[in-house]
C-alpha cells in the first residue's frame, strides 16, 4: 500500500463524522483561498476570482454543516486527529497542481477532481459505516457532492478550453532555458 492509498477510518459517531466533513470543507476553503491569494499576487485575476468563488462555495457548505449540527463554534479538532485516504482531505486540491498561467478551465478541472474525490470518500464511508446515523449522513453528503460534480461539469462547458501552448510565456521568470 503506498503513502496515498490509506483506507478511510470510520467515525464512530455522527458528531465525529460531521466534524470530519466540516474539517474537509474548511481545508478546501483554506486551500482555495491560498490559491486565490497567490494568483492575485501573480496577476492572474480571472483564475484568482474563480478560486475565490470556490472558497466561498466551500465556506457555504461548511456553514451548512454547522447549521445542521446546531454548532455555534466549530469543534476544533487537533491536527493529525483526522485520517484521510490520501495525503490531504479529499476535497483539497493538491498545492502543487496550480500554475501561474493556468486558465479558468484548469481551475475547474482541479475543482472537478476534488468534488469527485469527495463523492468517492463519502461513498466509501457510507459503505463501511458501523452506525446507521453515520451511514445516512455519509449518503446525504455523497449525494450533495454528486450534485457539485454535475455543476462543475456544466460550468466547464461554458469556459473555453486552453490551447496547447497555454503555458508559454514570452517573458518567463527564468533565463536558464
Amino acid at each position, binding site marked *: 500500500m503506498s*503513502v496515498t492509498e490509506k483506507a478511510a477510518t470510520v467515525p464512530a459517531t455522527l458528531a465525529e463524522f460531521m466534524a470530519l466533513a466540516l474539517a474537509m470543507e474548511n481545508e478546501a476553503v483554506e486551500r482555495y483561498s491560498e490559491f486565490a*491569494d497567490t494568483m492575485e499576487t501573480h496577476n492572474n485575476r480571472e483564475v484568482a476570482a474563480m478560486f475565490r468563488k470556490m472558497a466561498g462555495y466551500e465556506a457555504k457548505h461548511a456553514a451548512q454543516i454547522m447549521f445542521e449540527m446546531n454548532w455555534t463554534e466549530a*469543534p476544533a479538532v487537533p491536527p493529525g486527529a483526522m485520517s484521510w485516504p490520501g*495525503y490531504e482531505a479529499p476535497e483539497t486540491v493538491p498545492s502543487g497542481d*496550480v500554475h501561474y498561467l493556468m486558465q479558468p478551465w484548469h481551475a475547474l478541472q482541479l475543482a472537478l477532481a476534488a468534488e469527485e474525490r469527495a463523492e468517492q470518500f463519502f461513498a466509501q464511508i457510507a459503505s463501511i459505516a458501523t452506525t446507521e446515523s453515520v451511514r445516512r449522513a455519509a449518503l446525504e453528503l455523497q449525494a450533495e457532492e454528486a450534485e457539485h460534480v454535475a455543476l462543475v461539469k456544466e460550468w466547464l462547458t461554458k469556459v473555453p478550453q486552453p490551447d496547447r501552448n497555454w503555458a508559454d510565456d514570452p517573458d518567463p521568470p527564468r*533565463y536558464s532555458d
Partner: protein
Amino acid sequence: MNEVAPVAFTAASYKSDYKPIWCPGCGDFTVLSAITKAFAILQLQPHQVGVVSGIGCSSRIPAYTSCYGFHGVHGRALAAGTGLKVARPDLTVLVAGGDGDGFSIGGNHFMHACRRNVDMTYIVMDNHVYGMTKGQASPTTEPDWDNKLSPGGTGIRAFHPLVIALASGANFVARAFSGDPNGTAEIIAQGIRHPGFSFIEVLSPCVTFRPEQREWKSVVHPPPVEPTDDPARAARRIMTDDGFNIGVLYAGSRNPYPHYRSGKPKYTVEDLETEFEL
C-alpha cells in the same frame, strides 16, 4: 453537541496576515502549512516559538508566521538560531531555509550545529536548485542536471544532507515531502519533541526552475523499516536509499548541548546585562 474536545491553538493561530509570494505550485506553501500544524499539534504558545531563517525563497517563512521571527543573513540561520536557543532555552526554536542557504553558504554552520546538538529543529526545504536567484545548481543538484547555466550538468557529486547530519551528530534525522503536509507536520512535531538537534529535509518542489519535480509526488514512499537509534544502521539505510524515503530515519539518544540540560539557563538576562554594563 460537541463531543470533540476543543483545542486552544489551531494551525491558523500561527499564520500571520502576510500572504506568501512564492510561485503558484511551490512546495513551500505546504511546508508552511505543515509547520503551523506541527505547532498546533504541540499546542505551543506562539510567543514561545522563535522561527529563524537565512536567505532564499523558503527563508521568507518567519514573516508568514505569527511567532517571533528572525530573517537573518545568508547561511547564518543556524548561528542565529543557536544563539537564540542558548540565550532563551525556554523557547522552541525552529530554523528554516533552503538547500543553497543551508548546505553551501551555511554548510559549515550546518555541520557544527549537528555536532553541538543544541535542542532545536532545522527544516531544509530542498528543491535541488537556487530558486530566488533564478535556477543555478545548488549543492543538492544532481550532477547531470543539464541547463544553460551548467551545460551538461555540473558533474559534481550531490551533497547528501542526511548522511552529513548523521555523521556530524544530529540527534534526529528525517525526510519529509511537501505534498504530504499532514505527514510532514507529524514529522516536524516529532523533531521538535525530540531532544537535541533535529534535522528534517523536506523535499519541496521548485515548479518554476525544476518543473519535473512535480512528479516527486509519485515517487516518494514510506521507509521500508522502522526508525532506528543505531547510527550505524541509520547510516547504511540513508546511504543506500533512493532519496525518496519519507519518514523518521534516525532518532538518537545523545544529550543535548549541556548548557541548559537542567532546563534552566546558566545566566539570567540581568546577569548578562550586568556583564556588559559600562
